[in-house]
């Protein structure tokens, strides 16, 4: 079987930006649409009196949602080209869906932000870019859509680029790209554009297929949060004791000297096992089971790392939290369950330092609480030490969720800035 790289995309935009049409266009032009699906949307388009086949209908699940009474959430769509396999997290763009956007962006390699060429950079565009930068999505592509409605004007495109660049300079965006497209007509989405001979860059799909994402993973800092202890109790594997988990970052090899936190005991990796057999090395992202040379006490929630490269250890933590609860608000003094890697503890919110006004991106210093979809900076104290890295260095060990202890609902998602003073 042909082995491909998996790339995660997050797309945000409102209905009016043509996001559904753009996604439909990508699926259609990369030949991911079955004959019967196509006939169904041709039919629906004709019934609605459209002059063209409305590709947005391919992904428009709104009606299905209403019928089934499920909430608007993140939609995951899978598609592939001969070069890469993509998972696209599709989130609505309105401010009331900020929590969904954060969810989608938290695992994304590439953020696709849409703007309508007629409207240019809006508050909403800035909010999308801000969230992508906050969640450290490594690559941001600004798709200037509806170029057909501005006569494919280079001047309009250049002005939008300039305006967005000057705004983006205030954010932390490692890699920023622009593509002028018409999702409706198909210009520069999968096929190139004859209508925009002045544009010499890649199409959107080429960009998605070629952006170098392999180096975005942290392969330096070995972090293995222990998830589960595998003890078979079978005749064949009587003495087997494997520490199961997914390598959060770095690379592990048999023979590596390791340290276990919180105990501080040292040992050596005896083997790294998978269902298919033992491996000589295992990089970040793989789920494996590790055996150690020494018989020491290791439990779920412990962290295996290298003795000379350890995460930070602490109970006083500085973090940025996105609030996700419709019913309760984050307030200083409140206590929540916290889940960080495979470790659970309780957290006391000591202080809310400020809230971001996500329309203007200004800091609101006199904020007293956080409501649904609000983002703010807090300091908190946990009942047990966390083994963490700054989110900017490690998306896996730098993030956590807050849980309402009464209902077990996830009420907040956080990224760690460092130890709080």
């Amino acid at each position: 079987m042909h082995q491909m790289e998996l790339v995660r995309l997050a797309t945000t935009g409102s209905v009016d930006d043509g996001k559904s049409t753009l996604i439909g266009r990508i699926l259609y032009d990369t030949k991911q649409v079955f004959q019967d699906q196509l006939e169904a949307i041709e039919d629906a388009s004709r019934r609605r009196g459209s002059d063209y086949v409305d590709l947005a209908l391919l992904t428009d699940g709104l009606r299905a949602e209403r019928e089934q009474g499920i909430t608007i959430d993140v939609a995951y769509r899978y598609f592939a080209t001969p070069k890469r396999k993509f998972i696209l997290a599709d989130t609505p763009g309105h401010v009331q869906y900020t929590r969904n956007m954060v969810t989608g962006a938290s695992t994304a390699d590439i953020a696709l932000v849409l703007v309508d060429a007629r409207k240019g950079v809006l508050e909403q565009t800035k909010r999308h870019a801000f969230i992508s930068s906050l969640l450290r999505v490594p690559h941001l592509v600004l798709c200037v859509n509806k170029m057909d409605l501005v006569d494919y004007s280079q001047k309009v495109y250049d002005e939008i680029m300039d305006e967005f660049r000057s705004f983006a300079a205030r954010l932390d965006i490692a890699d920023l790209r622009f593509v002028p497209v018409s999702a409706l007509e198909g210009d520069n989405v999968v096929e190139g554009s004859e209508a925009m001979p002045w544009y010499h860059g890649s199409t959107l799909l080429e960009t998605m297929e070629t952006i170098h994402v392999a180096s975005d993973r942290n392969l330096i800092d070995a972090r293995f949060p222990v998830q589960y202890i595998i003890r078979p109790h079978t005749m064949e594997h009587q003495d087997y004791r494997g520490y199961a988990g997914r390598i959060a970052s770095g690379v592990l090899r048999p023979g590596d000297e390791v340290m276990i936190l919180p105990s501080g005991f040292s040992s050596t990796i005896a083997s790294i096992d998978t269902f298919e057999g033992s491996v000589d090395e295992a990089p970040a992202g793989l789920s494996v089971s590790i055996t150690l040379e020494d018989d020491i006490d290791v439990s779920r929630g412990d962290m295996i790392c290298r003795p000379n490269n350890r995460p930070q250890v602490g109970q006083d933590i500085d973090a940025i939290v996105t609030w996700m609860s419709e019913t309760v608000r984050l307030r200083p003094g409140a206590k929540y369950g916290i889940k960080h890697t495979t470790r659970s503890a309780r957290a006391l919110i000591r202080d809310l330092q400020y809230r971001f006004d996500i329309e203007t991106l200004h800091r609101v210093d006199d904020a007293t609480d956080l409501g649904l979809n609000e983002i703010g900076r807090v300091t908190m104290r946990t009942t047990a030490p966390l083994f963490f890295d700054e989110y900017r260095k490690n998306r896996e060990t730098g993030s956590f969720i807050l849980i309402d202890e009464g209902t077990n609902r996830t009420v907040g998602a956080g990224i760690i800035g460092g130890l709080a003073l």
Partner: protein
Amino acid sequence: MSYQITHLDALESESIHIIREAVAESERPVLLFSGGKDSALLLRLAVKAFHPARLPFPVMHVDTGHNFPEVLAFRDRTVARLGVDLIVASVQDAIDEGRVVEETGADASRNRLQIEPLLRAIEANRFDAVFGGARRDEEKARAKERVFSFRDEFGQ
């Protein structure tokens, strides 16, 4: 050697991570296994997650009574080979006991009738986590299904 992970390894590792996490955080999990292709894949992932130990939880089949005999034989062979317990919740029993009513007409199906025996079996066995396999592209709403979906006492 390159540290690149292929798309299948990445997806499999993510699935194994989720399965282990759910099992670590729950008391009495169960996995829905009918012998069909989606649940066969799910079961395979679960077996990989706990290898070389046996699957640390039972599997359950919500049996519509409309099966190919070969699929049932595969189901039974598979659970025997893995040494796991199989619980069967029967739609036919639910009909016979008057708990659900068989649909009639050209589009009659027992798909919807599975809900009652499923929830009843979950309650009777006090399961607190249920693994189910589905495909994102099966239907538009499936694209938005959450990975972890919290349900209330009505199973909703």
